């Protein structure tokens, strides 16, 4: 939530019959100068074609978001009431997450006006500065607010941080609950399908397996997992096998430098009741490189004697990005004839399918596929 910029000012502007566009109320007072408003008022009290759109202006150090509204009715002097409630930020603030808030607030105000002449009645309008102050304070402090206006309307607003779209989920991915996740959703808060899946997410089962064991359709599982990823509750790692190959990334540096991370890592990786040192963990991580399988690493270091759970070691490394998996991609060379026995599999050997994917989709075991690929000289294997 730290990414959210602070609202500097909220102002209510309307088209005055005599004075033209003006700021009627502003909290805090006199934040936006008269000259600034005059230079941009065409984008605040707009012509008809720009009404009902969310407009952001970035000028002279301010970013102003507004949603101009025009209510047409013969009861108004010029047959229309034009107003705009704007939020003001610093020029560098990322304001994307405030757009829905401004839009919703404009909706509330036009409803209030249509139902109870909230804006055209001078007495009622005087409540506005107090409401704006409350919105400003609450949104800046907590990111949400609920303000009671009258018996039929309560203004509920919430700033929702704009999150990235989660990547596509495939059947061979392994979801794992992020132990450091800040998303404090209780199990009972998730939807029913997700609740059914959660017990199966243990960091070892891949999605296709979870779907079978939980007896849920795989598409639904994928959607649930994606949803959980959106909220940062889980991460995706790869299937664990002793024949897997991993390599360290530059992020390993953080494990050396960050004491907090070291503690978390040791806690996660150590077998029950054993105490281990960072050095050992670091040594094992650095032992991972292309050409060295997890099995080789275990033979070399004997993690059991050291009190390290190698499966958790790999899990933690993947989650934190210290290591990344090197996937095997079989590629059929186009100019070679190849053998008939394998031709049904050639469609997989285009270079965009990893062993994991092929195994998961065809039901072959890793070793079977390996044998087949090795026996065919027209196939090369890339690790990346």
């Amino acid at each position, binding site marked *: 939530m730290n990414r959210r910029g602070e609202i500097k000012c909220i102002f209510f502007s309307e088209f005055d019959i005599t004075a033209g566009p003006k700021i009627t109320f502003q909290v805090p007072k006199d934040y936006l100068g008269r000259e600034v408003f005059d230079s941009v008022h065409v984008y605040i009290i707009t012509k008809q074609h720009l009404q009902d759109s969310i407009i952001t202006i970035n000028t002279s150090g301010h970013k102003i978001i507004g949603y101009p509204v025009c209510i047409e009715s013969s009861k108004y002097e010029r047959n229309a009431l034009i107003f705009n409630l704007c939020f003001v930020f610093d020029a560098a603030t990322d304001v994307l997450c405030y757009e829905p808030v401004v839009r919703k607030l404009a909706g509330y105000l036009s409803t209030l006006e249509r139902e109870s002449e909230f804006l055209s009645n001078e007495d009622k309008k005087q409540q506005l500065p107090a409401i704006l102050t409350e919105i400003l304070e609450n949104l800046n402090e907590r990111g949400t607010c609920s303000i009671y206006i009258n018996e039929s309307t309560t203004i509920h607003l919430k700033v929702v941080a704009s999150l990235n779209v989660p990547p596509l989920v495939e059947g061979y991915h392994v979801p794992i609950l992020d132990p450091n996740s800040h998303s404090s959703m209780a199990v009972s808060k998730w939807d029913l399908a997700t609740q059914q899946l959660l017990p199966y997410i243990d960091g070892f089962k891949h999605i296709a397996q979870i779907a079978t064991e939980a007896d849920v359709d795989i598409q639904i599982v994928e959607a649930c997992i994606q949803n959980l990823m959106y909220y940062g509750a889980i991460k995706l790692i790869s299937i664990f096998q002793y024949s897997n190959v991993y390599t360290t990334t530059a992020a390993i540096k953080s494990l050396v430098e960050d004491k907090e991370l070291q503690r978390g890592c040791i806690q996660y990786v150590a077998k029950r009741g054993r105490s281990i040192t960072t050095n050992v963990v670091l040594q094992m991580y650095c032992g991972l490189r292309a050409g060295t399988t997890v099995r080789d690493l275990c033979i070399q270091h004997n993690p059991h004697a050291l009190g390290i759970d190698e499966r958790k070691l790999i899990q933690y490394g993947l989650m934190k990005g210290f290591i990344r998996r090197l996937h095997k991609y079989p590629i059929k*060379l186009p100019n070679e004839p190849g053998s008939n026995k394998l031709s049904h599999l050639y469609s997989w050997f285009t270079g965009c399918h990893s062993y994991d994917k092929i195994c998961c989709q065809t039901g072959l075991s890793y070793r079977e596929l390996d044998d087949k690929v090795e026996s065919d000289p027209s196939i090369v294997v890339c690790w990346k």
Partner: protein
Amino acid sequence: MSESDPVGVFLVYSGSAGDRLLFRYPYESEDSNQLFGKNPGTNVNPYAVRIIEDLSELRTPVSSISIRTLIGYSDKVLAALLAVKPALCGHKFEVKVNDVLFLGHPLVVPKTHPSPKHARVTMTSFNVVFALQGNADTMLVSCYHDLSQQLAVALRHEEKRCGYLSEQASTMCSIQDDMASQPEDSLESPYGAMLMKCPLANQLKSVHLSLCSGGVVQLYVNQWIHINFSLPHKVHMAYSPGTKVTPKTIQRCVESLRPYHGMLLLVDEETLLDSLPPDGSPCLTRLIQVSSPLKNLQDLASDSDLSLGQVFQLVTHLVYWGKAAIIYPLCESNVYVITPDTNMIVNSTLVEKFVELFPGMSLPAVISEFSLPTPLGEHRDVLGLPQQQAQQVQMVVWMLQHQLLVQLHIYVYRLHDPQPDTGHDKAPVNFLTPEDLPGPRRKDTRVSDAASSVTSDESQGPTPEKSSSFDIGSDGVSDEARFQWSLLQENLSNEMKERIMNLATPDNAEDVHLFVRLCPYFNGQHHLEEIMYYENVRRSQLLTLLDKFRNMLILCQHEDVGITTWLNDDKTVSLSHCC
């Protein structure tokens, strides 16, 4: 469609005759002009009861962008929106309407002596505006602003010099007026006619097209003012599609530029030299002529007779323009592996390009040899002809140019002391006082206590003896060694010191001194090549040393983050997601 593409370019002016849109590209057919604010496809029934609480239209705003084009904005709307008041002129203009961001740099037209020829249009201000997708990041916005400003300033200059802008504007206006007076069923767009008659309109079109294709804009406004612009988001895509290079990535690359790095030209020398403007810096030409992927920047500096600082600047410049990449100079000990993002579909254009250049070779087969991190020298076929070897180097260069390969470096970490139990985090392990310096003064008891409590099994012998054993080694050496030792002290713990002392005997005093000298590099920030360069040691020397002290060190192999462009910040996140 890439999100860095513009969705439109506009030229507007405001003057005596009000605001007017002079030119837009791409222009659309007339019938879609009037849709703005309404849902396309649904005719609004005038008799329908307007439901007061109908918030649905508030919730689902219609996108104004379809297939790279801005839709639903009529010329009048745009004119009103983009022609600005004089108060806003001379500053960045940034207005976002729903999901379209309009970006420009309005300028006031200088007062010239109005010639009767141009009397038709009197301009007060004008604005060259780009429309982008609303989610454009700040870097992209500032790049586009830069271009818009360049164009605007050039136009203002030309207006001042010879009234170019008013001349073009009056041509555009007259074409618009002519078209408006034609019968309604005429389908011809005035903008199409402008492209025939107005060089300015044509140039704006070419700006748009080159932004969409290559990201490089090069033109002469009124055949006089040179506009030169490159959009980093785009130019790097040409060599390695799919990578997202932002100015931030480039800045990171440039910041980690060191004299031992080399420069790899991404286009061939001839093409690059031809593309340089005639008044370009001769230094740049010289640098390009001597450049080779085998040389480091220092060699380049001496070969081209430039100062190192100048070479840095020129290389930075070439990198920004997507003409070069920073690499470690090719040599036999370099270790390359396949870049994880490489997309190697068998029949991709990349594979075809490769076969064209190297007939008889197949990219997948060649690249699969880089699955394991082996030094380049070992890839070479010992019995191969020199010709084949030369070809192999060329292939590696080609693959580096297309970012199919990435170099791995070895980084060295010093083993940390075994952590005392939690709670003793601030135990005086790293606490050193001047008395700790080796030499006549004895060690503080407190320190040896700490050391013995940390390593119960190693500190069995009495500590003073050990330090004296080190003293034997250091006494014979100059003050320099002592100075290095004191440097080391600053970031070494007692336990570590003790272990070094354990190893120190008169026989290997040299090793210990080298180790002590290199110790500051063993923190995972410096790869072997960097240590070799800065400390002027040979690779074999360094490797022997590392082997001797292997109990205290951890070696780790990964890419040099600083100069790896494919690894940008969001990539690292997604990598960790999808491993």
